[in-house]
């Protein structure tokens, strides 16, 4: 059911990302998402970057809909459906290594705060690293990687994960980021023999598990996911290879 909430606070995270806080009573788990809408945009899925009574979304400006969201100020209203999806399984007693790539960091931040686990945040460049303050407050260790070497480890999150895993074994890797990152992260986890939970993304319409538009090999990203385990991903032919457009046509990631 849609709820209409007022924005309590709008914070600029960096040059292209803003966080909007609002109050929503519905309980939410780290890794869940909401469908967000206001007039002048298409409704889109957004990961919750905070999952308490005060919830938030962190929006990177990538197109007309996120551009529209960026115009919002404190006191403005947005429509919110959800929370939807399964969220991360953060069973206690396990050592997690949590990884956020780019704006995927928004999705993992509540998991970082819930567990205090070691965290890797990656981005193209220093200015693309978001939510650092929250990670540094919550996590035991926070490590950074940048593709251009402008901050932290020079390289990507997968390379950095391998280095950290060589120093210390973890029970499970939790991650959200671009699919190409997740694809190589999954491969690395397979090689290292470590379980992972990855938050995936597909074009969504209902968001609630009925229409079937976001399926990957019959699994609904909106309802069975967005977080999938290594065991589930092992069964997916679509992962890292292809997605479907809004008509349901197959689109290959690489020709």
């Amino acid at each position, binding site marked *: *059911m*849609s709820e*209409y909430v007022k924005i309590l606070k709008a914070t600029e995270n960096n040059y292209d990302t803003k966080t909007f806080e609002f109050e929503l009573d519905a309980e939410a788990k780290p890794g869940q998402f909401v*469908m967000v*809408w*206001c*007039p002048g945009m*298409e*409704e*889109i899925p957004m990961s919750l970057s905070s999952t308490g009574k005060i919830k938030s979304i962190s929006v990177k400006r990538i197109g007309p809909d996120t551009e529209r969201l960026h115009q919002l100020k404190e006191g403005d*209203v947005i*429509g919110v*459906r959800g929370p939807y999806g399964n969220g991360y399984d953060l069973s206690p007693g396990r050592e997690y290594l949590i990884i956020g790539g780019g704006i995927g960091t928004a999705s993992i931040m509540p998991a970082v705060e819930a567990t205090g686990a070691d965290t890797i945040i990656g981005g193209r460049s220093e200015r693309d690293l978001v939510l650092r303050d929250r990670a540094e407050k919550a996590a035991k260790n926070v490590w950074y990687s940048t593709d251009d070497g402008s901050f932290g480890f020079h390289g990507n999150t997968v390379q950095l994960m391998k280095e950290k895993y060589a120093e210390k074994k973890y029970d499970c890797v939790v991650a959200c980021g671009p699919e190409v990152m997740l694809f190589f992260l999954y491969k690395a986890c397979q090689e290292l023999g470590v379980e992972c939970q990855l938050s995936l993304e597909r074009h*969504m*319409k*209902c*968001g*609630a*598990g*009925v*229409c*079937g*538009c976001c*399926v990957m*090999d*019959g699994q*609904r990203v909106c*309802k069975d996911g967005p977080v999938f385990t290594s065991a589930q991903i092992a069964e997916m032919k679509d992962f890292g290879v292809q997605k*479907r*457009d*809004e*008509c*349901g*046509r*197959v689109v290959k990631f690489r020709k």
Partner: protein
Amino acid sequence: MSILSTAVGKVGLKTPGMVASGIMDETGASMVRMLKAGAGAVVSKSIGSEPKAGHANPCFTEVEGGLVNAMGLPGPGIELFAEEMAEAVPHGNIVGSVAGGNADEFAMLAGKMEDYKACAVELNLSCPHAKGYGMEIGTDPALVKSIVAAVKSAVNIPVWVKLTPNTHILQQIALAAQDGGADAIVAINTLKAMVISPEFAKPFLSNKFGGLSGPAVKPVGVRAIYDLKSVVSVPLVGVGGITNWRDAAEYIMAGADAFQIGSAVLTDGPEVFAKVNDGLEKFMKDYGYASIKSMVGAAHE
């Protein structure tokens, strides 16, 4: 043969519940998943001639008692749908739902579905939110008859016709479909509906209106099947708001030989089919019904 087996004309079903069109049926893999979950058949997404994006988001919301959607018949188009059918058909009954704008287009689409080995074709003459399609052409008895007749002369597989409740002449339309040669009538599609967000003083859906489905529409659907059973002789398929065995039994006793489930996949997941099948079997044994057929139309005098 299981107590739950039934048939819609020539189409035999191991279990009486099918996946309604528009639910988890746009890809081969998701149709396979629904068959494995215990559906006796899957009715595909309504496929048109060309790839179609459907209506922009928002196109869906939960409401009290169900949900309102205006997907706008998105789909990859009939040519590309060949691949999805090829993946699904080896696993069970797939009814190919098609949405054309006129008799020729329906006949062409149905022919393709026959080529793809659909066990039957379902004509979408009832979608309430796609301009020029569905209900807009499915509420004129003469037009309905001509479309069904055109499809009948184009294919050999059974032709089912899915009707809209958004009319006061449902019986006339069904009779027209039967006159045109329909092998079964499926009822109901969604009820035309609207949701307004007071905060924005605007309709919520990008298409402004959509269709209501879910538990709230069940009594409307049951009444429709009851009315249809009184006038047509072809088999009926009941759909609208079925969530549990009671709902299914109501439709069957109103006159349906089989039923379809859609919105309950939202609340119960694909597991809804196993739940309804189990409940129905228990009820039948408890109340002495030896077969689905023995329950069909039981509520009529």
